[in-house]
């Protein structure tokens, strides 16, 4: 089960997630993000994971897919508020080598935007 909150400010899509991100929600996550990116001409994506307690390789794949899409046009994906276990998984996956990691959304906007 996951909850998802979307907001657009200027050229950035903010996505705040809550719950456990695994195969059970991967399709929903992919479809929601794609749908929003298709409808809105944003360049950057900020994913707030501060209320995400679990992430699996399926959902990391969904995030990487969105990264590839935005990076093609020079956009960035930033990860915000990673809990220790989620951080470890993101690090092991190599995602932290290509995406910025920030403590707060403000920091992500200030440093990445």
């Amino acid at each position, binding site marked *: 089960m996951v909850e998802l909150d979307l907001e657009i400010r200027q050229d950035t899509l903010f996505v705040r997630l809550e719950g456990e991100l*695994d195969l*059970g929600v991967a399709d929903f996550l992919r479809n929601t993000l794609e749908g929003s990116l298709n409808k809105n001409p944003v360049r950057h994506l900020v994913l707030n994971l501060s209320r995400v307690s679990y992430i699996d390789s399926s959902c990391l794949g969904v995030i990487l897919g969105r990264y590839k899409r935005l990076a093609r046009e020079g956009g960035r994906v930033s990860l915000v508020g990673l809990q220790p276990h989620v951080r470890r998984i993101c690090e092991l996956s190599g995602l932290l080598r290509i995406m910025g990691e920030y403590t707060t959304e403000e920091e992500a906007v200030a440093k990445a935007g």
Partner: protein
Amino acid sequence: MKVVNQLKMEFLSVPENVAFARVAVAAFASQLDFTINDLEEIKVAVSEAVANAIVHGYENSPTGIVRVTVTLMETGAEIRVEDNGKGIADVKKALEPAFSTDPERMGLGFVFIQSFMDRLHVDSSPAGGTRVTMIKTINRGAAAASQGGH
């Protein structure tokens, strides 16, 4: 190796069962002296193996059966995840980091399992499905240290 407890489960190959499987196996394994971190790592391994059975083994068909067996010994837990799906043609290749037969996926499932468990063994045949056997041993030092917090 004395068996102290054993659980056998089987459930349908629907994505919702991935979360169930990791919660159930961690709850069962918590009967041993694992640390919270050990249980977190067991969750990841179970989750990835069950997701693979659903996504690759049964190619997302919800009518397959996934079997999970957990054997608790004094030394640790052996966890087996089995499917009767399409099997793995080349197990050695499948275990390589970043290898995936699905362009949408990252090829990280087995990487996570190998990082988090002490042993991994994969048996597979195109006819007979796939059996993933994983062992997590109890780190006596860590368990003893964490006893302080009891």
